[in-house]
């Protein structure tokens, strides 16, 4: 008999909450991150082709699209870092109350953007 039950996590059944939003975005950013890291691996491998062949990649990375991608990866990494810290704290047995999960979820969302700006400024040596 064909199984017609919806697969977990039953996105079409549950009402959306901050914690479910953070959970789904964590999974999405996890997949984005590994795709980004794979692209970075290809980028590092392209260095073997030599300096003259690298110019095209360099021009792309210096363009607005390149900068947008770099900023997007930074946000995706920031979100993942904060979300993993939240998960590890929850694994220690803290923050399971609905009010607390909502607050920590909102903190992860807001601070992922603040973190992105801080990392970008730190990386570009605008601060420190």
């Amino acid at each position, binding site marked *: 008999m064909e199984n017609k039950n919806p697969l977990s996590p039953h996105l079409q059944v549950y009402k959306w909450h901050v914690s479910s939003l953070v959970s789904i975005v964590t999974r999405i950013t996890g997949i984005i991150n*590994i795709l980004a*890291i794979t692209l970075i691996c290809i980028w*590092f491998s392209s260095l*073997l082709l030599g300096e003259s062949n690298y110019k095209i990649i*360099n021009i792309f990375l*210096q363009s607005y699209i390149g*900068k947008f991608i770099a900023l997007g990866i930074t946000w995706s990494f920031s979100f993942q870092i904060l979300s993993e810290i939240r*998960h*590890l704290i929850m694994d220690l047995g803290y923050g399971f109350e609905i009010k607390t999960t909502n607050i920590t979820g909102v903190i992860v969302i807001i601070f992922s953007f603040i973190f992105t700006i801080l990392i970008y400024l730190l*990386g570009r040596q605008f601060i420190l």
Partner: protein
Amino acid sequence: MRPVTKKWLFLKISSLILIPLMLWFIINFVSFYDKNYQEIVKFLTSQPSKFFTSLFLVFAYFFSALSINEVFEDYIDDEKIKNAAIKTLNIIAIFIPLITIIIIFNLTYE
């Protein structure tokens, strides 16, 4: 120890190790992504960068393989497709970092 518990433990340990490595990598990535060939090679061939980048790649793929495994378990209903997807994922998670690390160790800064 149950395999599920072992998997959970591996996921948590790799996550704990990955957090500072991700932070280190992303700060450096932002600083060098638009730099020229020589500067990127200089960064990748320096001893600490070589070591931390390799460590980052190993843990990033290990952690991702474990967590994407969970996504496959949750979303793929067909057992054959699920097993094939998990095996493909594991092969990718071993070979991509391995090849990249070999390439990084073969780069030379002149």
